[in-house]
């Protein structure tokens, strides 16, 4: 199943990258992908997203035991869950369309789309959750043959969709075929997924799969204390298995691809008036890296202790320094943070042929964001923990917003001087940003220590 998700995800990326490559070859300033490509990318992404959602939010939802032990028949449970995934995706789609409409109206932008595109988009947005849901359910059925046959059929749905969208056939033909695919998916749902749903939920929610695939140890350097290494490893495995790590990497990579799209759309130095064109990309990279650090480092750090909740007893009764254990948890989050450098801070400055000093500035600025967010995140996780099981330890919106603002203020303080200096002297600018990264790392360590002091004084009353 995981392989299937990876295939779906990377398939989507491959398509996007193919489009980028295609456009780059044409050297077009204005991005103009084919409608088929755009539609299929959206369909593919939402299919994968729905499949993941179904696995994590539906099949692994243990609370369904109350439904199955009630007079409700299992078909009713199945359809309620299917509709939940469907409506949730349509809601997201609706919100996204509203935003697009707003931007189009405000910016007075002319989009090359017609009624056929919109109708197809809507139909695919209904089809994608159905396909994703079926794949998720059927790939967990016990009977191997049933699993194989059903997955082949579900896979064909995706292939057919791709073929239709790229066929260049008439609009009516495409619409008719998509409706047929929709009916086909519905039939699979009714006759294949629904009858096995209870069985699949039982085996998946019990979660008895062997984890031999992930049993390998992380090779962390020896200068890190043993307790920190062990804690990092355990935390990383848990985050990986909850698919938090891959999904976060995916989002950051998408943001990096988005940057490339903007570059391809607007060219190397867009004319923004007031002679500010040369600041456009540095500012854009900085904003994107900041946002990526918020998503990849700050927000996951904020629930490090809240999510553990009652399980914290195990850490409190260990003969280890709380600082080491807290650092271990934080390290598990920032372990993959260099992805921000690889996908956001590095590619565009290289493509834009910026001097080495600017490239280094971009890289070290990202590290400033990562260190600051990790420190602030861990401190806030200890200072404002949310032990409410139903929210999975996620901080409330006010805390989250305040911490993002705090990170922004710190980032401005740390980077304003180097940013000004690099304008005057490149070498001094680079040295000052390296110094800023050092100081932010020190601040991060100080905040780790502060959070461990808070934790030591905390009482576990639950």
């Amino acid at each position, binding site marked *: 199943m995981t392989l299937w998700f990876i295939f779906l995800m990377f398939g989507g990326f491959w398509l996007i990258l193919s489009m980028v490559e295609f456009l780059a070859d044409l050297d077009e300033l204005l991005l103009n992908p084919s409608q088929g490509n755009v539609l299929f990318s959206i369909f593919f992404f939402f299919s994968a997203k729905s499949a993941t959602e179904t696995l994590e939010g539906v099949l692994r939802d243990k609370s369904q035991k109350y439904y199955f032990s009630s007079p409700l028949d299992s078909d009713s449970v199945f359809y309620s869950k299917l509709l939940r995934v469907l409506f949730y995706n349509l809601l997201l789609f609706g919100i996204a369309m509203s935003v697009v409409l707003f931007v189009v109206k405000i910016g007075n932008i002319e989009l090359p789309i017609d009624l056929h595109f919109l109708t197809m988009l809507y139909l695919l947005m209904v089809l994608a959750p159905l396909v994703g849901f079926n794949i998720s359910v059927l790939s967990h059925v016990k009977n191997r043959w049933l699993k194989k046959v059903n997955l082949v059929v579900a896979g064909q749905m995706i292939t057919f969709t791709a073929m239709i969208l790229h066929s260049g056939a008439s609009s009516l033909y495409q619409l008719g075929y998509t409706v047929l695919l929709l009916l086909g998916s519905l039939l699979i749902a009714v006759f294949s997924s629904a009858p096995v749903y209870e069985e699949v939920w039982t085996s998946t929610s019990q979660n008895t*799969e062997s*984890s031999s695939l992930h*049993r390998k140890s992380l090779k962390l350097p020896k200068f890190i204390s043993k307790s920190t290494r062990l804690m990092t490893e355990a935390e990383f*495995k848990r985050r990986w298995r909850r698919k938090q790590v891959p999904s976060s990497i995916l989002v950051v990579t998408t943001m990096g691809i988005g940057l490339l799209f903007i570059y391809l759309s607007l060219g190397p130095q867009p004319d923004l008036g007031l002679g500010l064109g040369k600041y456009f990309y540095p500012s854009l990279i900085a904003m994107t890296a900041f946002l990526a650090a918020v998503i990849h480092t700050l927000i996951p750090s904020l629930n490090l202790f809240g999510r553990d909740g009652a*399980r914290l007893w195990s850490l409190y009764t260990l*003969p*280890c320094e709380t600082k080491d254990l807290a650092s271990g948890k934080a390290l598990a989050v920032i372990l993959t943070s260099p992805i921000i450098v690889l996908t956001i801070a590095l590619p565009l400055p290289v493509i834009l042929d910026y001097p080495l000093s600017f490239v280094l500035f971009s890289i070290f600025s990202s590290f400033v964001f990562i260190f600051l967010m990790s420190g602030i995140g861990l401190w806030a996780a200890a200072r404002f923990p949310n032990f409410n099981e139903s929210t999975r330890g996620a901080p409330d919106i006010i805390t989250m917003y305040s911490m993002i603002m705090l990170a922004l203020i710190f980032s401005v303080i740390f980077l304003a001087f180097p940013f000004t200096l690099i304008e005057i002297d490149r070498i001094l600018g680079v040295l000052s940003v390296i110094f800023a990264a050092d100081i932010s790392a020190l601040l991060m360590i100080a905040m780790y220590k502060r959070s461990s002091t808070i934790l030591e004084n905390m009482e576990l009353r639950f």
Partner: protein
Amino acid sequence: MIEIKDLKKSYGEFEALKGINISLEKGKIYTLLGSNGAGKTTLIKILTGLLQPDSGTARIDGGSARQDKNVRERFGYMPEHPDLYSRLTGEEFLHMMGSLKGVDEDVLSQKIKEFSQDLEIGEHIHKEIGGYSKGMKQKLLFINAIINDPPNLILDEPTNSLDPRFSQDIKSKIKDLASQGKCILMSTHITPVAEDVADKVGIIEKGELVAEGTVSELKRVNGSDNLEEVFIEVINHAQQVS
């Protein structure tokens, strides 16, 4: 050795512990018996360092688990609820906890294998804890408590969720561990469990230790040959007095 002196703890207006005194030597099993909400878990949480007492002391081998991290090497703890990291396998959890408690790598792997076979966890040890039954989690917690062979054991309702066969098994293991010289403090509200294993029983009600003694002493003083009857009588009497 476990020593609790004049231990008091309040949650706001509610007095959870009103000055408890308990002393326990090595090789002995002390069972805290009490109804739900009597204060057993609060006492155990203070002893293990999860809670801070308002006053009084709770010491293990002369030290406080909350203040001195080295003390934490000297006891194994089994909590009341099997709250475990569901996305780790049983083996990974035990490996992490054992290593952090300072058990040697080779010894640890051997111990995990032996204990999991002994308690019939079998191949499930390689699977994620999220798929375990409550009883299986309880067994894992028991293994975790004894993995570093600590001189003291603090067990909060250790036979919870276990079927009669494994309950019997755990009880006999607890007695074995005591015979090896370990000092064991356990809580339960199941009187036959206390009757089976305890060298000394303390009945706790509304944060006070209302009766204490060996099972036979308690039976004799209260004129009954059944610990359950003794327990109910002592609790009723304590409630009338308060």
